[in-house]
């Protein structure tokens, strides 16, 4: 009986700690970092040079599955040492889910999405490379 109870408690703990970002729709990418898991997709799905697009982002903490309280989004071209000409605005949709608007890639080439997840501890930056033809 004790063994059964211990197993149940472990299973419950696993469920509570499970971290699966609740992104609606198929993600463009899933980023697994030391402290978070983040998934995102673009809207529209295809990014075009010089066209505004939005990001739908979902993230959770690996240790307890809880959503990080705050997200910041940016993008840059590391080789050219410049970012976008626009500052994305981020709006929470639900705990652990956000919509970022106002992004625009103004030239083709190698871009990098930057996601800053802020919470109780230090900010963690996640990045994802993206080649725009």
């Amino acid at each position, binding site marked *: 009986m004790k063994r059964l109870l211990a197993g149940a408690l472990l299973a419950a703990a696993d469920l509570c700690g499970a971290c699966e970002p609740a992104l609606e729709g198929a993600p463009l990418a899933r980023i697994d970092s030391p402290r978070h898991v983040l998934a995102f997709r673009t809207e529209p799905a295809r990014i075009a*040079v*010089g066209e*505004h697009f939005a990001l739908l982002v979902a993230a959770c903490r690996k240790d307890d599955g809880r959503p990080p309280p705050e997200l910041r989004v940016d993008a840059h071209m590391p*080789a*050219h*040492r*410049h*970012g976008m*000409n*626009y*500052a*994305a*605005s981020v709006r929470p949709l639900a705990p652990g889910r956000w919509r970022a*608007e*106002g992004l*625009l890639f*103004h*030239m*083709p*080439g190698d871009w990098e999405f930057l996601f800053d997840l802020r919470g109780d501890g230090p900010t963690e930056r996640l990045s994802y490379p993206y080649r725009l*033809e």
Partner: protein
Amino acid sequence: MISRSLLALLCVAAPAAAELLPFTDAEVRRILSHGPWPMAWMPDPSNRVSGNAAAIALGRELFFEPRLSGDGSVRCASCHIEARAWQDGRATAAAFAPLERNTPSVHNVRFNRWFGWDGAQDNLWAQSIRPLLDPREMRSNATRVARLLREDAALRARYEAAFGAAPPDDDEAVLVDAAKALAAFQETLVTGRTPFDEFRDALARGDRDAAARYPLAAQRGLRIFIGKGNCSVCHFGPNFTNGEFADVGVPFFVARGAVDSGRHGGIRALKASRYNLLSRWNDDPIRSTAAKTRHVVAQHRNFGEFRVPSLRNVALTAPYMHNGRLATLHDVVRHYSEIDLDRLHTDGERILQPLHLDAREIDDLVAFLESLSEARAP
């Protein structure tokens, strides 16, 4: 029997065999991205008379109307001259007083994201108001414009046809409507097809014979443009511009101790403008095209940046650059070929590097640029 001399003459007169460079698949993809032309045209949602035939007719009338100006002597068309591809051929503009910047053509303005060399306007009707009110350009005001549209019977009738009512009592509302009619007219000024477009479309349909009719020098120049020149990074897409801003090493001193801050000042002016897309004058209730205005931010690197112009009809719009300091396309290509990296702003994009092109490469690049223009009228 053909005589030897006639045979020799025929050989001399025969055109060189058409040739098509062996473009790689990646090069072909880049070439195809510069078309098709013309681009799809959609009305401007911020302008309720965009695409309206009566408004276009009123706008054309106003574009050539000198009574809009302070002393009745200056038209929009005084600087945007139809026979000069809608620019003035001068290095810098001058109406009532000299200005610091080159007059851009109004061809293809419907496709712009930002307006003016510094992008201080986010829509074409606001851009049309700016020179009306500038004391150096048309030196006018809302009262003058409104009075003309109310009191001139022909213009009043055209206004009523375009807007469905008589000009209102609010002078500023009439000024904005006049600008929206001016915008509706300018939106119709789209450049025609060019030798490059014929080449690009021939490649797209796999017609090598037709593609080979594109001059070899232009093909070589195109290869530099999309390749080692990196030109197509900013001069992107069918309109040959990414619609944004760049520092390309052109000095921005306008007088002793005075500089043209370019995009940096443009963003400040945009945010302060009473006619931007966030204003009450935007006819689109959901502000569907205002995302750029909400999200654009001034950054240190914007200092000395100017709008990347379209290259369509570029051979017809000399002189070049935001201050008209380069007289010919050869000068422009030499500027980039020998670009002075010290002149670039410290945060300048490291896309531009001196190419040290040789004389033939410069000629080739110019041949390509010339192929982006419609044939001149005889």
